[in-house]
């Protein structure tokens, strides 16, 4: 297993800028975003019919991504979620490791806090290493990102390389301006399926 990197004294990456960078060259990738700020981050980077925003099912984002990745093996599926959200469904990393979908990447925007409830600590600020858990679950690769150059190095693993891949991107916990995100379930699922499947969405 890779040795742990030294942590920088200050986390400088900003979550909106990180997600915007990741989605800049997304191509036709399908994006699933987890409850809380991650859905905000994805919408702020530019709303897209190939985005499916979650606003509930804490702990479910990675598994929505798995089902989608198995159904669409020729498309890249990128799950963008928070550390608290992934911790709530931590067993899903074992399930995904066993299935080993080559086209799935999970990006954890890790502010080490539960942003929606008042910035209380999550386990990731107390030593829990999500990248190590992913590697231990059989992921093809995983990385923890602290800096802009490390984020650049993670772009191919996120969007191109053989998965499953998990990136933990450490971001600072300062509040960010809220944006409006479509949250009407039937509209979103129909929009997503129509864009992906065309007329077969009616089957």
């Amino acid at each position, binding site marked *: 297993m890779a040795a742990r990197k030294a942590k920088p004294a200050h986390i400088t990456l900003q979550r909106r800028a990180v997600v915007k960078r990741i989605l800049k060259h997304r191509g036709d990738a399908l994006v699933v975003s987890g409850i809380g700020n991650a859905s905000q981050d994805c919408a702020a980077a530019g709303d897209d019919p190939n985005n499916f925003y979650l606003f509930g099912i804490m702990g479910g984002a990675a598994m929505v991504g798995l089902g989608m990745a*198995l*159904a669409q093996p020729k498309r890249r599926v990128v799950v963008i979620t928070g550390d608290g959200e992934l911790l709530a469904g931590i067993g899903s990393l074992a399930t995904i490791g066993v299935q080993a979908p080559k086209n799935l990447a999970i990006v954890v925007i890790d502010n080490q806090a539960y942003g929606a409830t008042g910035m209380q600590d999550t386990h990731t600020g107390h030593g829990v290493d999500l990248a190590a858990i992913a590697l231990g679950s059989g992921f093809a690769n995983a990385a923890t990102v602290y800096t802009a150059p490390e984020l650049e190095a993670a772009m191919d693993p996120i969007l191109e390389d053989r998965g499953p891949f998990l990136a933990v991107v450490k971001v600072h916990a300062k509040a960010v301006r809220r944006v409006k995100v479509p949250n009407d*379930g039937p509209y979103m*699922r129909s929009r997503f399926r129509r864009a992906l499947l065309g007329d077969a*969405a009616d089957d």
Partner: protein
Amino acid sequence: MVRRPTARRHQPWADDIFKVLKDVGVRQMAYVPDGGHARLIELCLADKGIRSVLLTTEEEGVAQLAGAWLGGQRGVMLTQSGGVGNCINMLSIIRECRIPLLALVSMRGQWGEQFPWQVPMGQGTQAALESMGVIVHHVDEAERVGETVFAATQLAFNAHRAVAVIISQRLTGTGARG
């Protein structure tokens, strides 16, 4: 003498379910190992056209099948009644987005149960499902399993509803080891 209900190793009705699943084009199966579904799990694992996904907990399967349907594939979840309780919050995506769900529930804590710790969740299974808007069908006769599951697939995949078929412990057996 009345025969004492015990674990049923012979589950011919599972073959009827499998045929229905193939006929309606199910491509993903999510499961946690379960004696009541042993035969059906075997059939799915042996089929190249169905991707069987072993879960750590049943709620993962609800999220997986939501993603599968968004991606254009139909799926089914095989769960024991005890696993239904694990799914409650995850059923939010199914209900809020009106995504089809087909769950086949093998019962414990019901017909002739001998192990006390199976009873609470077994007796709460239907109420738990209905509390999240899942439509419940029941079957307790082997010859009706196929048609009941077929009816459930129509309601799920064509009418876009969440449907669970509760398979009675009269068919799955009481389980020998708790």
